[in-house]
C-alpha cells in the first residue's frame, strides 16, 4: 500500500483530506491506523452536523484505546461512511479507500492551505516515529 498518497492533504493529527471542489472526503492515515492497531469501533457525526476545523469530528477506537478524530476543515457533514461503522476494520485494511470516515461540504476553502502536502506530512510522520 502507498502509505502517503501524493494527491491528498494531511493534518498534523494524522487525518487525510481528498478535495473535489468544496466537497472533501476525510479519513485517518496509514500511520494513524498502524499506531492505533485493530480498529473495533467508529463513532461519526450525523449527516447535517456542522464541524469546525480542529474540533473533534468523531472517535476511532482500537482494542486498547479510544482516539479522537479532529476535523481538518470546517463545514457540514453530507455523508458518513455506514460501511466503516458496520466494519471498523476497514480503517486498518483500507485507510485511504473503503475506510474513509465522512464527506464534508467545506465552508472555508482557505483552511485547506493550512494542511500539509504529502512531502511535508512524510517529514512530520518521520519526526513522530522517532
Amino acid at each position: 500500500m502507498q502509505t502517503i498518497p501524493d494527491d491528498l492533504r494531511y493534518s498534523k493529527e494524522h487525518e487525510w483530506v481528498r478535495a473535489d471542489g468544496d466537497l472533501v472526503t476525510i479519513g485517518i492515515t496509514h500511520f494513524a491506523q498502524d499506531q492505533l492497531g485493530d480498529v473495533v469501533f467508529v463513532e461519526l457525526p450525523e449527516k447535517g452536523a456542522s464541524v469546525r476545523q480542529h474540533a473533534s469530528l468523531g472517535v476511532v477506537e482500537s482494542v486498547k484505546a479510544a482516539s479522537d478524530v479532529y476535523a481538518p476543515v470546517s463545514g457540514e457533514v453530507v455523508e458518513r461512511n455506514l460501511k466503516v461503522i458496520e466494519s471498523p476494520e476497514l480503517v486498518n485494511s483500507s485507510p485511504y479507500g473503503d475506510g474513509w470516515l465522512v464527506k464534508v461540504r467545506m465552508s472555508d476553502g482557505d483552511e485547506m492551505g493550512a494542511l500539509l502536502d504529502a512531502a511535508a506530512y512524510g517529514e512530520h510522520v518521520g519526526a513522530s516515529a522517532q
Partner: protein
Amino acid sequence: MSGGSLRRTSLHDAHQALGARLVPFAGWEMPLQYPAGIVAEHRAVRASVGVFDLSHMGEFHFRGEGAPVAVDRLVSSDIAGLAVGQARYGLLCNERGTIVDDVIVYRIAADEMLMVVNAANVEKDARHVQARLPQDVAFEDASLETALIAVQGPRAAVLLSAVTDLEVREESIESLPAFGVTRGRVGGVRATIARTGYTGEDGFEVFIPHERAPSPWNRLLAAGSAMGVAPIGLGARDTLRLEARFSLYGNEIDETTDPIEAGLGWTCKLDKEFVGRDAIAAAKARGPARRIVGLVCEGGVPRRGHPVMSGGEVVGQVTSGTYGPTVDRNIALAYVQTPLAKAGTAVAVRIRERDVAATVVKTPFFRRPT
C-alpha cells in the same frame, strides 16, 4: 520514551526481531503486540496456540518443613491441603480483609512452595509476606532470576510435548492435570512446568532460569509453526483474560476491594486461619453493597472508569472493558450496586457523555467448549 530504567526480559532481542511494539509495564519493557495485532493474536490462542513472555511476573520461594502451613496462613485458599505437584489460585489479603494481590501457589516439593505474584506488586508482596512469616521458613524473591513462558490454547499440550522431556518418564504433558505442576526440560532447559494460565484455554506456564529463556522460546515458535503458533503480547493477554472473566489486580481488585464484592469468595476458605479471614467473614455476613458483574454494551467500547448508570443515577463503575474478539461484543467488568447485579438487568454505560445501553450478563463471557 523514557526507557532508561526499565527492566528487560532475556527475550527482549527475540521480541524486537519479531517486530513487537514494546511498552513500559510495571517497570519492565514488555511486548504490547506483535505485527499481526491484538485481534489476530487473540484468535490464534483461541483457535490453536500462543506463547507469551511473562518474565516480568514475580516468583517467591518458601522453603522449610513449615512452608506449606506458613503459606496457608498467608493465602485465602486451601494451601495446606495441596499435595506435591498441585497448585491453587488464592488471595493475599491484609488484616482489614482487602486484597493485597492475587497469586497462584504451587507445591513443588514436600518442603517448597512457589508463589507467583503480579509484577507490579513484587516489592509490596515481599514485604507483606516476610512480615508475617515464621522464622523457620526461608523466603526467597527469585523474580529477577526467573523467566516465565506461557503456552496457551487448544494445541498447547501438543506443542509443549514436542519440545519437552519430563523428569518422570511415566508422566506426559498430556496427562498433567489442570493446576498440576512437574519438572522437566523444555527446549533443553531445566524447567518447572504447570498446567495453569490466564486465558480461559488449556495451557501451561513454564518457569526457567532468567537468562535461559531464548532456547525454549525459539523452540516453541519453530515447533509450532505448522499449527500457527503466535507470539502473544500484553494486549491480547488482557482481551483473553477479560473474556474469561479473570480479575486483573489494579482493575477489579486492589486494597480497597474485598473478595466477596469482587466475586472471589470462592477462593476464601473461611474455616481456616489466614490473614484477613475475620474481616472477610464479616463482609460475607454483612453482604456486599456492590458486586462485580459482566456487562455487554450495545454501542461503543466501555473502558475503565466509565460510570455505570441506571435511572439517571451513577450506580457503579467499569473496572475493565474492551472489544472481545471471540465473543464479538463490547464487554466490561464493573462494580454495580448489589440490587442491580442480577443477570438480565438493563443499565447504561456513560461513554463520552452519552449513555450507551448495556446488560448485566452471566460470566465468563467466553467458556471453552468442552
